[in-house]
């Protein structure tokens, strides 16, 4: 089992969630984060000046999944989180080993509990 953490742009969240659903990954956890701004693209406006803020809004996805779902999940994220042909700021995916996974509802653990 692996724990995938993906940092994406907020405007792609809906698309990523739908892509994951198509890849049969239904259970995810989402949270707000901020990341270093991409210095070049789509700046925000502040009283007539385009500014690239130091920290920009990001979304953080956590997906625990069994090994065979890792590549489909990554592909789904890659396909939906990219702007155009890929822009700085599109994000990162991190994969760490997951030793145990426990479903609180039933107490069961292991691959079935994902």
């Amino acid at each position, binding site marked *: 089992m692996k724990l995938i953490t993906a940092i994406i742009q*907020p*405007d*792609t*969240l*809906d*698309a990523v969630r739908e892509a994951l659903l198509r890849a049969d990954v239904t259970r995810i956890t989402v949270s*707000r*984060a*901020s990341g270093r701004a991409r210095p070049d693209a*789509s*700046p*925000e*406006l502040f009283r007539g000046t385009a500014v690239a803020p*130091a*920290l*920009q*809004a990001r979304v953080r996805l956590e997906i625990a999944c069994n090994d065979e779902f890792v590549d489909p999940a990554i592909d789904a994220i890659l396909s939906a989180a990219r702007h155009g042909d890929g822009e700085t700021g599109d994000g990162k995916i991190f994969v760490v080993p997951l030793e145990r996974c426990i479903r609180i509802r039933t107490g069961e653990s292991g691959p079935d509990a994902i």
Partner: protein
Amino acid sequence: MQGSPPVDSGTTAWMLTSTALVLLMVPGLAMFYGGLVRTKNVLGTMLHSFAAMALIGVFWVVAGYAMAFGPNVLGGWIGWNGDLMFLEAADAKIMDEGVPEYVFAMFQGKFAIITPAIIAGAFAERVRFRGYCVFICLWAVLVYTPLCHWVWASDGFLFNLGAAGAIDFAGGTVVHISAGIAGLVAALYLGARRGYPGTAMHPNNLVMTLIGAGLLWVGWFGFNAGSAIASDLQTAQALTVTQVAAAAGGLAWMLIEAAHHGRATSLGVASGILAGLVVITPAAGVVQPKGAIVLAALASAISYGAILVKNRLRYDDTLDVFGIHGVSGIVGAVFLTFFIRDSWMSAAASEVGGSWGMLDQLWVQLAGVGITLVYAGAVTLGLLVLVDKTVGLRLSEKGEMAGMDHSEHGEQGYGMLNAG
């Protein structure tokens, strides 16, 4: 200026205050609506109200007031008085009520601002800002101003219908029914938001919505009690029924929810307050507190039902503009007939020099409502098609997913959510 009536400083004071109070409704509405959409659309939604302030605020002074309150032209379809462009002819004019015409023009202007801002709730979260701006300008010219002329100008045909006119004290038809039907048509024409109704969409800030409802209540005192263009008994009557109806509407919705779901919600209380305020708007000049309580309870109940029906029919009137403003507005304009003060009825009867009964007035009210629904609905549809095909009205799918704040305005509502 010789010969002009003297200024009544008291009446003028109240009309100035009313104008400020109605203005307060615009941020109030922005908060009410802004809190109900998803986080990514909060600024765009609030801007719909603020853009109406800017656009219609200028239009009204340039030509709107001249169209609404000038004498009939084009067979009464609209009014026109070129001297009132930029309010020039009003610069030193005192009206018979003892109020400078400027104040009346500004008070009325606020109604012209808030009506398109109300519509915006129906197609929230999926409209282009540019298209919205063009749409509301055209709508103000072609829908609002004629309706306003018909109902409130002294030579407007609805003002003169029946014995003493179609009763619309403060804008039940002109403001709420017209906005309600326009919203319904727009929601149907533009189609649902991406994911509706499968995905439930969360209000981003019910706290703000609740505060917005509070400010709307306060502002509505100006809206209704200012519509008497006086500071006297009639003003007091209008204020009283407005207060009672708001309270009764909120209470009724609370009880309905408690009966239906076993618990009351803050959005429910806010919606009921709104329904009560809308229903009393046409009626505030003619009904008494008891009637106001009944009307408000009816409005809450029927609006509640209308929203349940909408959810069945699965069209996406995002913030229930038709469900609340349209439906409660119709309830008010029609059912007020059964609660009219006796003195009004006998005055109406003596006006026609004979008898004038509830049923007579009912037909007049139904005519007013029907004409508003048909005219506003049809012209709105035409404008939607026009704007959509030219400037573009519906947001792109990508823009909708990213949210209006990002895609249309390049901003973020709550920077505080970013750490640091």
